[in-house]
């Protein structure tokens, strides 16, 4: 530091610098406005013997709630919800009339909610040859068709990342979670795989969709079919929760297992009573479970309920209330397996 006088620019540099400064055209004068945003500080946690660094799932908390500890503590303790009122709009479930997105990776396969609807087409168009194309790749591709479409739908509102492939090699990883590398033979023998995430080591049984929920982390994992040494693994991680849904977001259906969905349920202003309104499409009658999770620790379930969703399009409304005010809550929805479900809107009205 002492070797350098910061107060002066060397004379031979000053002229060229000034010339450069004044030569910059009007385009360079147009500068982006700095923006304030949430702090996405990297956190770390010891998982077994591994120090895992991760970015937590962020909540876009409203200022009125985030800056009032009474709402974030007493409001959560006093939270309650009313009866689910379901009104059917139409009995028809027609995927072509629901504005879900195409996969950005494989748009040629059209609108797909479930892997079973696209897998036969991939197998037919790209048959296995034993030297370059092998079976698990079809399965992983079908999953990617579904997952990348769901990812782009959620990303209209916030951010969700996914990954699918062979859990042995090349391995499956998303931003802050990964499947532990395990040969398919062992996977089949043990009946499951292990996910390393900020929630610790979670065992994911074969053909099971497992929510991965940590204190400050939300995601899920699915372990699918095994093909000798290979097996299919799928991961989803919520980077930042959406606080409303205004365009259709499908629930991924992988081998018939439906992934959970997380959204931040928060009124736009401070209030003691609000109404949650959703518009849902379902291909069959089903029961959707809802868990209301604590925004201070996602592992804590404050309350839970079950909605009878009929086939077709329906609106679902329910009242939420609390004192001193309705707090922001993580709404965790879990449709039944074997269903095709789309959430068209989700809003909290004061």
């Amino acid at each position, binding site marked *: 530091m002492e070797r350098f006088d*910061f107060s002066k*620019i060397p004379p031979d540099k000053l002229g060229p610098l000034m010339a450069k400064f004044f030569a910059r055209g009007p385009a360079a004068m147009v500068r982006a406005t700095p923006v304030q945003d949430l702090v996405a500080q990297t956190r770390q946690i010891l998982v077994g013997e591994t120090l895992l660094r*991760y970015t937590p799932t962020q909540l876009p908390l409203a200022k009125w709630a985030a800056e009032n500890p009474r709402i974030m503590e007493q409001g959560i303790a006093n939270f309650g919800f009313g009866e689910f009122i379901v009104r059917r709009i139409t009995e028809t479930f027609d995927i072509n009339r629901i504005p879900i997105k195409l996969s*950005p990776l494989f748009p040629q396969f059209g609108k797909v909610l479930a892997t079973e609807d696209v897998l036969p087409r991939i197998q037919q168009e*790209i048959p296995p040859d034993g030297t*370059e194309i092998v079976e698990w790749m079809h399965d992983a*591709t079908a999953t990617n068709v579904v997952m990348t479409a769901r990812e782009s739908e959620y990303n209209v509102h916030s*951010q969700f990342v996914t990954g699918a492939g062979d859990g042995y090699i090349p391995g499956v990883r998303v931003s802050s979670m990964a499947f532990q590398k395990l040969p398919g033979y062992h996977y089949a023998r043990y009946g499951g795989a292990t996910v390393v995430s900020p929630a610790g080591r979670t065992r994911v049984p074969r053909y099971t969709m497992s929510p991965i929920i940590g204190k400050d982390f939300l995601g899920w994992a699915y372990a699918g079919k095994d093909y000798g040494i290979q097996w299919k693994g799928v991961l989803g991680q919520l980077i930042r929760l959406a606080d409303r849904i205004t365009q259709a977001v499908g629930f991924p259906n992988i081998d018939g297992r439906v992934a959970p969905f997380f959204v931040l349920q928060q009124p736009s202003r401070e209030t003691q009573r609000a109404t949650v309104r959703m518009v849902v499409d379902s291909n069959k009658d089903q029961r959707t479970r809802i868990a209301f999770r604590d925004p201070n620790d996602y592992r804590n379930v404050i309350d839970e309920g079950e909605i009878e969703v009929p086939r077709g399009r329906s609106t679902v409304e329910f009242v939420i209330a609390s004192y001193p005010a309705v707090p922001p809550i993580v709404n965790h929805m879990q449709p039944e397996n074997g269903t095709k479900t789309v959430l068209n809107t989700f809003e909290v009205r004061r």
Partner: protein
Amino acid sequence: MVLYNFPFKMKIAGEIVFPTVAKLPEWATNAAYRNAVAMPGKPEIKVVGPFSESGLGKAIGFPDAPETMDWDTILSWVKDIAPIEEEQIVEWMQTATAANVICSRFMDEYKRAGSLVVGGSGDPYIPGVKAEDLKFVSERGRTVGDRGYGVVSTPTGNFNVPVPGKATGIFKNILAWGAVLESFIKQWTAVLMKFRDLVTNPQNRISLPSFRGLTAPIFLTHSSSIPAPANIAEFSVSTNKPQAVVLRARNVDDYRDVLFEDKVTLQKGQNVIDYPVFGFPVVPVMVIELAPENQTNTILDYWTAYP
């Protein structure tokens, strides 16, 4: 709340974009400094120690992978644990696994420095390769091989990656890097990385990933604590062989705008560089790109901005 150059999420021409963001100090919001320019002085370079790979990150998901940057060692480990004789293993999977070990370690090191890069390797034909909103266009290996390049699609434009070869994708608000390692008739192996949240003046070691000799650049934010017309960037780079590293300073408001470009010649070992930067009216907050030569193992030990 923290100040960033771009929002977490943007909508540009109807497309959702998750930009590469850089953290800004409070002083950078001053309108008087918003069009500042910069140029480098003559650096002083000292070799202070031998090249060492100690203190690097862990590859999550591959806890038993060899702790080295050496491509051949990692690939040979993959070939041992997943030989082609296995019915479902084909060649591109081994290459992609070795690349994933390196990507995973790089992501961990970048996170350790308090920021975020995402990436991975696979076959872009099927099952596909993506990193957040960036993706390789799904085409057959022969198509990209004959044409000579694969295409990375981003919400703000495309960039081409030679087959085999590497390319950096620089857009107004996205920084990315892609490489194609090999191509067959249907399959090909590619690596894609996106810098999501740039690290500011990192103080931990970050290895610059190298895949089959194709070395990726690193991007970081140079940010002084107060506005000053002269800064010294003191940084240390370890390299396993002599090389000239290209250093580019980019505008934080538009990454395509290069404020200056320089070459720093390094000897084998750990090189500590005192790098003067002059600015008018002050040295702005800049995004630094350090691009090493191919076939090298390079580690950024730290980067400090004075004052």
